[in-house]
């Protein structure tokens, strides 16, 4: 062991010495999230909200699409990041009940990089770009809300009408949706 230590001392000579009292250290997950947050490109259609600014691992993302079928809506997603990030993906859920082929009534989101295709090299920006894309191009081939997907596939105009009425807080096929208009 002493051999290891003498090697360590040699290694250290080139670097600045460390000392001092031991306090709680910023965790690896916090560091990574901090980095990801500084690189977010939110543009004019997205914003974040931090219920507790000291806790950057829990926040809400609001997407307000300015084009596409969901234009005029304001959609909220909760981001819950654990200490295993970026090994584990962030847990993302829509907090409103919305009519969307890739989002179920509980708010689960079908986005490949949130589950099967997540890799630690991906960052939070990749996730928000993915979410934004779901509103521009809802995808009928990966359905979580089967009825919505079926509508989109068979009757695009009818689907658009359903989107409008659901966003206003109306009913689509016996389901009442949350009002999400700005």
């Amino acid at each position, binding site marked *: 062991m002493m051999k290891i230590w003498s090697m360590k001392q040699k290694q250290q000579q080139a670097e600045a010495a460390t000392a001092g009292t031991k306090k709680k250290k910023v965790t*690896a997950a916090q560091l990574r999230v*901090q980095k990801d947050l500084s690189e977010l490109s939110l543009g004019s259609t997205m914003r*974040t909200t931090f219920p507790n600014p000291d806790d950057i691992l829990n926040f809400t993302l609001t997407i307000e699409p300015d084009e596409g079928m969901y234009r005029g809506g304001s959609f909220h997603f909760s981001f819950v990041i654990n200490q295993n990030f970026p090994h584990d993906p962030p847990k993302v859920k829509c907090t409103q009940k919305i009519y969307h082929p890739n989002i179920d009534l509980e708010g689960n989101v079908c986005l490949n990089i949130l589950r099967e295709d997540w890799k630690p090299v991906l960052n939070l920006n990749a996730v928000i770009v993915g979410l934004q894309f779901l509103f521009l191009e809802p995808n009928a081939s990966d359905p979580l809300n089967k009825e919505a997907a079926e509508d989109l596939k068979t009757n695009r105009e009818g689907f658009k009408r359903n989107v409008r009425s659901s966003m206003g807080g109306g009913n689509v096929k016996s389901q009442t949706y949350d009002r999400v208009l700005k």
Partner: protein
Amino acid sequence: MVAAVATPPVLNDVSQDRARWKYLDNILTRRGPFTDEQCNPGPDLIETLSKAKVLVIGAGGLGCEILKNLALSGFKDIHVIDMDTIDVSNLNRQFLFRAADVGKPKASVAAAFVERRVKGVSITSHCGKIQDMDEEYYKQFQVVICGLDSIEARRWINATLVGMVDMDDPDSLKPMVDGGTEGFKGQARVIFPSMTSCFECQLDMHAPRAAVPLCTLATIPRQPQHCIEWAHIIAWEAERKEDILDTDDPAHITWLYEKANARAAEFGIAGVTYSMTQGVVKNIIPAIASTNAIIAAACCNEAFKIVTNGIASYMGLENNYMMYTGDGDSGVYTYTFLHEKKDDCPVCGNLARNMEINSELTLEEFIEGLAERPEAQLKKPTIRTEEKSLYYQAPPALEEQTRPNLKRKIKELLEDGEEIAVSDPAFQIDFKFKMVFSS
């Protein structure tokens, strides 16, 4: 082989009660071709080994093997920590446990068993989480051997051991030997915290858990496992949102099993069973006893060589990562290599440096100063402590929420000696500073 020896020869300096350790003593008292120059074989080395205090983290599949191996390798002061209790499904490979032990804490049962079988060994058990122990606790050991099954726990102990390294105290450098197995595959590695590539540097060696797209689960399940995952992720949430799923509660697993079974019937899929449900929900990868034995043996060999100061050359400085695969398709194979340290590793790549600061300054003045300080030169820094977000340049909401801190004094925001982490878009890596108040 001689069938019987009437009286075993007694060496001068090794007493009769060392008979059990005859072969071990042969190694410890003779110089071999791979013995380090600084290692002194002889009676002192036997004593060094028996006095070494070692910590074993985990008393499960690997832990049982490790405890047994250490005790039989001449270690006499072993500590073990584990938070789990014994489950009936552990008994096939966790050989220190018997049916009557089911429900008891793993650490204490394993310790008692080994103490009973290997006289003279002391095993101190601790039933609890590694996170509940502080640096003082970890400081008492000479080497830490991990037989863990979770990445989270490994990251925690790794960061703790790296953070403990203190240049003024040689005793603060704790070598970490980490074993891991998954089915027929496994790895053993040696980490000299802050000197060699750490667990965080090697994080990408672990493939994230394979997952099935949510939409497959929701719409077109093809396999019995899909039906179980559906019950686990979607049905539970939809129907029992208020209950927290306890994967150890048979009633909960039964509920999921019945849901999965009904869904499988609906789609004409056969093969959903209760034990498959348990396996999928708890993400159980069948553990193979032989993999555990091989990996634990490698870990204990390394610990032995480190504690004896190099009776044979140990892994760590040159090669530090041994991977093993014993799966039928690719044959039995091991490969040992050097995993290099990452300069931008968030744990060991940039250990906190001291920064002297006048605590009467405001955060804003401090940030302006950062741009000029030669050791930082940061123009757009984002700063936090473990507890607080001090100032964020982005996103806008967070900037606005942390802006009031700019006018506050350092001493109102920080304690003397507290660590801050600074990121700046101009740099790939983050900086950590230990803030030392100069007034």
